[in-house]
């Protein structure tokens, strides 16, 4: 057997490929940076539903919102405290981004950390990023 060198090189390359994903992730920041509440949201004090529910349910709420707006033609949400919201991701003062007007420091921080990439922004726009 005079292929020893070749085999060892092969094994090393194989092992490298095997552990590459772990090595690759070593350098990345996995630290969670708290999302920043915008001044406007601070002034409003309350979200659509209580914060803890919002954390886990905002995707479902948005899903219901878009169906209600597009299919039922209703655009106003009245929460259990009787407060009204515009059922929109980014249109109007009282929409998600209308109040959380710092998408990059709020929505994106969480999503980047959790590796969530909502495809919504392929169509929906952040008023801050366009004129």
């Amino acid at each position, binding site marked *: 057997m005079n292929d020893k060198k070749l085999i060892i090189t092969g094994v090393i390359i194989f092992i490298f490929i095997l552990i590459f994903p772990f090595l690759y992730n070593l350098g990345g920041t996995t630290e969670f940076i708290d999302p920043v509440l915008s001044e406007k949201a601070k002034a409003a004090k309350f979200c659509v539903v209580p914060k803890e529910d919002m954390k886990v349910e905002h995707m479902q709420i948005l899903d219901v919102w878009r169906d209600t707006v*597009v*299919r039922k*033609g209703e655009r*106003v*949400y009245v929460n259990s405290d009787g407060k009204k919201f515009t059922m929109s991701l*980014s*249109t109007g003062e009282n929409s998600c981004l209308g109040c959380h007007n710092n998408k990059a420091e709020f929505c994106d921080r969480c999503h980047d950390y959790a590796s969530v990439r909502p495809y919504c922004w392929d169509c929906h726009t952040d008023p801050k990023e366009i004129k």
Partner: protein
Amino acid sequence: MENSRRKFLKVAGASALGMGMAGTAVRAIASGSGNKPKTMKNDNALTAKHWGMVIDTRKFKSHKDVQKLIDVCHKIHNVPDFEYLGEHKQQMHEIKWMWEEEYKHAFTDLNYKYVNKRVEHLPFLVLCNHCENPPCVKACPTKATFKRDDGIVSMDFHRCIGCRFCMAACPYGSRSFNFRDPRAALNLKEETVSGFPTRMKGVVEKCNFCAERLAIGKKPACVEASNGAIAFGDLEDPESDVRKLLESNYTIRRKQGMGTEPSVYYIV
């Protein structure tokens, strides 16, 4: 020891009952703080049983009069214009919610051998007809296109899978497909406006009778910009502007013979 089994069952039964009740009680308390959330229309929303449009073509003199309205519509809905990119016109890639058409193309079934000279060269403004019997709705396999209660043939972009059956079904060519990323053309122009989302590659789009404006008490943008050349109202209300116009003028509709019952009428 003798009746321990009996005792156990009693206790188990009682606690099961108790647990069930506790759940209900907790839920009752939790929801007791407020009312159930609900959704509704804006107070100033414009509503109708059947939205319709009457276009008075006598008030459109030239290409410019029509183009002005097209531009307004395309601007507020972020409709991309690939021609701007300096590419020669590729019809397949063109996105249009409204466009200009000649009489003979718009009214193929009324294109008699000898046609009135004035009408023959009039610029006709055409758009989605919001048909009473929309063939696109029947063709759509995901129900992304549907007819609302107020007659608007609407699109749910979230459900569109880009199959283009609706485009094949529409006899008016009112629908466009995004073969390319529409934002490529919008960004260059730096003209993306807020208020309406853009679209993405792979979905179909068309006129929505400005549903997003009706919802906040505004008439469609083309109607507003038309200086009275376009009327918009409830076709089922005998007192509405559109019904009065239809009663006092002779009007035509596109491809009447198809049985689609368009909601857009033209005074010629």
